[in-house]
Structure formats: structure tokens, C-alpha cells
């Protein structure tokens, strides 16, 4: 069996007296597309914030490729090879699409304090920027302000930003939120494309997306994982149906 890309061991998070994540154990395999689903308030976003370093765990540990990242600040986790997108679009609205992606790509080359390199002469960075732009299909709006893009273009840019640092493990937080049917199909295709050869962990509400995109699914209910498995297993799992799918149908 291959090593797990992300491994959560007895992970807990408390806010005051509220335990939001109550002991989660999960192994996301290398190169798989893994979905995290669950009803509202189950703690999916909290779990994402824990893994990506926005919150520090109250107990338990997080391993990235076998090394502990629990409690590290976000920028160090990104440098270790895990990067994420946000549910609320977090781009640079008053910069062009190209500038947005260039800042993302600079990180991959470790150009973090490049005080003495002119941006236009940074060949590798600019090449990667163009590649990213192709990948998320935004080349036609290269010089537009990110804030002036359409909503679905902004969501594509959001994914492009997450891809920029060149991490092998990608976390996407509700990439389809607020999209129409057509846009969703376009986005599934795009995500499938950009995550080739990477490990993907995605939170998503749209079941169609989850079932068509992901290899395995984990179900989180009230801070606990109640099931992990292939889409068919999850679909037929009685506990899942009771706790979650039943709720959706009703």
C-alpha cells in the first residue's frame, strides 16, 4: 500500500466548550481524489482550516507525506507541499489575472524575497504563470482585473491560485459553490485536468460532482467520520443514508 498523503490521527478541535471536531482519523491516499461530505455544520470547513494551518489542533496530529504538520503556520504547510482554495473567493481583486497567478507561481520557485529581480525578466516564473493561465483557461482575460471577472472565472482563478505553489496535495473548499449546472460541468472538467498526478481533497455539497469526480468519499457528521469508502459503498451505506443522504432527499 502506498503511503498516505494526508493522515489525520485522533484530530480534535475545541472552541471554548464546543468540540467541533471530535477525534477524526483519516488517510487520504497518494494521487487519489477524495471528497469530504456531510451536512451543514458537520465541521468540514473547520477540518480544512486545521489541515491547512489556519487553526491549530486541540489534540491529535496531522501528517503530510508522513511528517507532522499539526500546528505549523499556513505558509510553512504550503512550503511542505499542501495548498488550498477558499470557499469565499480569496484573490487579489485589483491586480490583473496575470499578476495574480504570477504571485502564486513565484512561490513555487522560492522567489519569496526577490527584491532585486525584475518581474519581466523572471523567465521561469513567467513561464509557469502562462502555464497556470492555460490550465485554468483564463488566457483570454490575462490583463483584466481579477475583481472584474465573472463569478465562474473568479472561481477558476481561485483554483489556479491554489495550484500556483506547485504543491502535490490540493485542498479545494466548495469549488462549485454558487455555480449553475453548465458552469459546474465545466468546472468538474477543469478540476480533473489540473489535479492530474496530484492528491485532491475536496469539500463539496453537489453530490453529482462528488460521485463523478472522486475516487473515495468520507462522510463527516457532527465532527466525526461515520464512513469512508468508494462512491458505491457510500451510497449504499445505511448510516450515511440515515445521517446525511436521507436528509438531502427529504
Amino acid at each position, binding site marked *: 500500500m502506498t503511503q498516505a498523503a494526508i493522515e489525520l490521527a485522533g484530530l480534535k478541535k475545541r472552541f471554548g466548550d464546543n468540540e467541533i471536531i471530535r477525534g477524526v482519523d483519516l488517510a487520504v491516499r497518494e494521487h487519489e481524489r477524495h471528497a469530504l461530505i456531510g451536512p451543514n455544520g458537520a465541521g468540514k470547513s473547520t477540518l480544512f482550516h486545521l489541515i491547512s494551518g489556519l487553526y491549530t489542533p486541540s489534540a491529535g496530529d496531522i501528517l503530510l507525506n508522513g511528517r507532522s504538520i499539526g500546528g505549523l503556520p499556513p*505558509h510553512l504547510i504550503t512550503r511542505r507541499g499542501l*495548498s488550498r482554495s*477558499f470557499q469565499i473567493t*480569496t484573490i487579489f*481583486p*485589483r491586480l490583473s489575472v496575470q499578476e495574480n497567478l504570477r*504571485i502564486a507561481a513565484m*512561490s513555487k520557485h522560492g522567489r519569496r*524575497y*526577490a527584491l532585486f529581480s525584475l518581474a519581466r525578466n523572471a523567465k521561469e516564473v513567467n513561464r509557469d504563470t502562462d502555464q497556470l493561465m492555460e490550465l485554468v483557461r483564463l488566457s483570454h482575460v490575462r490583463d483584466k482585473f481579477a475583481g472584474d471577472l465573472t463569478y465562474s472565472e473568479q472561481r477558476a482563478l481561485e483554483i489556479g491560485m491554489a495550484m500556483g505553489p506547485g504543491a502535490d496535495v490540493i485542498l479545494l473548499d466548495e469549488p462549485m459553490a454558487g455555480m449553475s449546472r453548465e458552469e459546474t460541468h465545466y468546472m468538474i472538467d477543469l478540476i480533473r485536468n489540473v489535479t492530474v498526478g496530484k492528491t485532491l481533497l475536496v469539500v463539496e455539497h453537489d453530490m453529482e460532482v462528488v460521485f463523478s469526480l472522486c475516487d473515495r468519499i468520507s462522510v463527516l457528521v457532527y465532527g466525526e467520520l461515520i464512513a469512508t469508502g468508494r462512491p458505491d459503498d457510500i451510497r449504499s451505506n445505511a448510516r450515511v443514508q440515515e445521517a446525511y443522504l436521507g436528509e438531502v432527499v427529504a
Partner: protein
Amino acid sequence: MLRLITLALVGAVLIAAPLFLEPHSIGVLTTALIAALFAMAFNLLSGRAGMLSFGHAAYFAIGGFAVIHTMQAVESGAIWLPTPLVPLMGGVAGLIGGLGAGFFATRRSGVYFSMVTLALAEMLHALAPNLGGFFGGEVGLTSMRMPWLAFDYGSENQVYFTVLAWTVFGIALLYAYNQTLFGRLTVGLRESERRISFLGYNAHHTKIIVFGVSAMFSGIAGGLLAFATESMNYSMLGMGMSASVVLHTFVGGSTVFLGPALGALIFALFGSLVSDLTKNWLLYQGILFVLIMMFMGDGLAMLWIRIVNECRSRNWDALRQRVLLLIPGLLITVGAITILEVTSKILDQQQYATSVARMNAWPPVSVFGVSWDPTSALTWLLPLVAILVGIGFVYLILARKMQQRTGTIIMSREPAR
């Protein structure tokens, strides 16, 4: 193209200025250039990185004091340094001070950052008079520029050209900074600090460096002032200096590269013209700043760019409207200035009160070459009517435009910053 021509013209005027101007005016221009460099340095932090510092005078003054000490050392022969390079030491001192203060201030963002920078500067300001060694106590420090090669630095012109060279060099470096990868990252910091850290950048360290660079150029500007005036005083650390750079920058426009320099030049030059006529110049500066913040958030440079664009696209409607707005604008301005000046002259306790006591009556005061009788209703009504008529006209003009193009906002502006 137009930009290049404008720049070349400004450059030519600045170089040729000493041919036409008397020494006093050259001195004014020298201070204006220093203010311009200071505003540009300030804007790197406030405009580009989105961190509003309300205590930037600290780094300006630290640079100034460092340069005075250097000049004293050169004067006494303790160290050797060509006189034109002396302002460099201001940059070094500013950088060190900025990195230190930046370490604390950048631990927080937004309003916290602004409050911390203000408190840090005020702490230094309160401390300075007690630290005689570095700040020269209450009286300050003085020194002399040593001759170097063929230059004796005794004339206004030599000082002017040294300051001009440093200002142009500093602004050019700031421009180059913006073109580097780190310069691009700096703007990202303003847009979303969260994204920056999730892209793998250490946001705190990045902010400290930006703070340091901004303080370094502020320090050079302060050093130039010390170099030009051969003196430095702890009052340079005060709130007034910090406030004036904020005013310059945002009146000029923080979103256009040269906007802050424009604001500083306008204020410094205009200030030297009117400060002989009125003692309320600072008040007018403040009112102008407040009005610009309320109605035209991106400053005069952006206004200029809009007008140029409207000329290019032959948007006569927009241009005609601007000209139309000038008339009520002038009415309001004249009315407001009249009221303010008459009031301020009457309230000037020392002069006016004694003449009231002597003559046992309220003598008229002179504003705009017209004499105004404070006891006459006309004195107050006339300007008031001018203001009201002006405001009425503005509403009329803008209302017509709104009718023509429903849905468009009068002053288009960028999204929330």
C-alpha cells in the same frame, strides 16, 4: 508617449528652475522636492502595501538626525565621506529604525497597525527631548556642509541640485522596486494578506521588509532636509510631519505612481505662496483633504488622468460638465474662504481685540482686497449666499447628468480597498 513628454517637461523645468528663481524660491523648491520623496516613500507602505502608517515622521526624522551626526563627524574629521553621499546615512538609519518598528507594528494589520505606528512615533517624540545625545534635547542639533571637490555647498543652487539628484534617484529606485517580483508581492499584501500566507509566503517577514524599505527612503528624505537646512530638531518627529505626508499622498493620489509626489509639490509650492496671505493655510489643507476623501477618493493625479482620457476619447459631455462644475466650485470656495478669513481675523485675540478696545467699535477687516465690516449683515450673508448658490448649482448639474445616464454613479471609483 504623453506621459514621457510630461515627465521630460517637468524634468526640464526642475533643472532650469535656478535660472529664473531667486534664492528664497529655490529653497522652497528644495523643501518641496524633499516632501515629494518622503510622500513617495510613504506611499510604498500605505498605497502599495495597504498599511496606513500614521507615524512616518519618526523614520524621516531618524534619517535626518543620522545625517546631522554624520555631517558633524565629517566636519570634525572623524570620518571621511563625500558630502553629496551624506544623505545615504539617513537611508541606513531609516532602514534600521524601520525594521525595528516594523517588527512590532506589522504584528497587527488594518486599524491596529495605524494605531501602533502612531503610538510608536509619539513615544519617540515624547522621549526625544530627554535624549540629548542623539536628538540634541529641546534645541536640536546643527552642523555644516563640508566642501567637496569643486563644490563648496555654500549656495542654494548646489544644495538644490544635490537634493534634486537624490530625489530623482530615490523615485527611480522606488519605481524599479515596483517592477521587481517582490514589488508585485507587495501589492498582493494589500489585496489579501491571507492569500499571501497560504501561497507559502511569510506575511509578517514580508511586511517587515516593506516597512523597512519605506522607512529607508523616508530616512533619505529626512537626511536631505538635514543636509539642506544644516539643522534638525525633535519637533520633526511630531504629529504635524506625519500628518502632512498623509495629506500630500492622498490629495495627490495613492493609486497613481507619481501621485504622492504631485500632492507634495502642489502643497509645498502653493503653501509657500499663500502662507504669506493667510495663517490658516493648514486649515485649508485639511479641508481640501477631507473633501477629496469624501468625494474623490483617488486624488488629483487620478483626476488628471481621467481628464486626459476624456480628451482623448473626445468625451465632450464629461469635459463640458467639469468646466460647468468649475463655476459653482469657485463660488463655494470664495464664499467659504471669505467667511473663514473674516472670522479668523476677528478672532485673532492679540491684534483685533486691542483695536476693538481702542476704538470701542468693530473695525472692518480686509479680505481679497475688499474691506468687510463685521457688524454688517451683508458681510456674512453675501459669502453664505455664494456658497448656497454654488451648492445648488452643483446639485442641478449632477442631477441632469443622473437623468441622462440613470444608474451611473457620479464619481466612479475603484472597489473597496
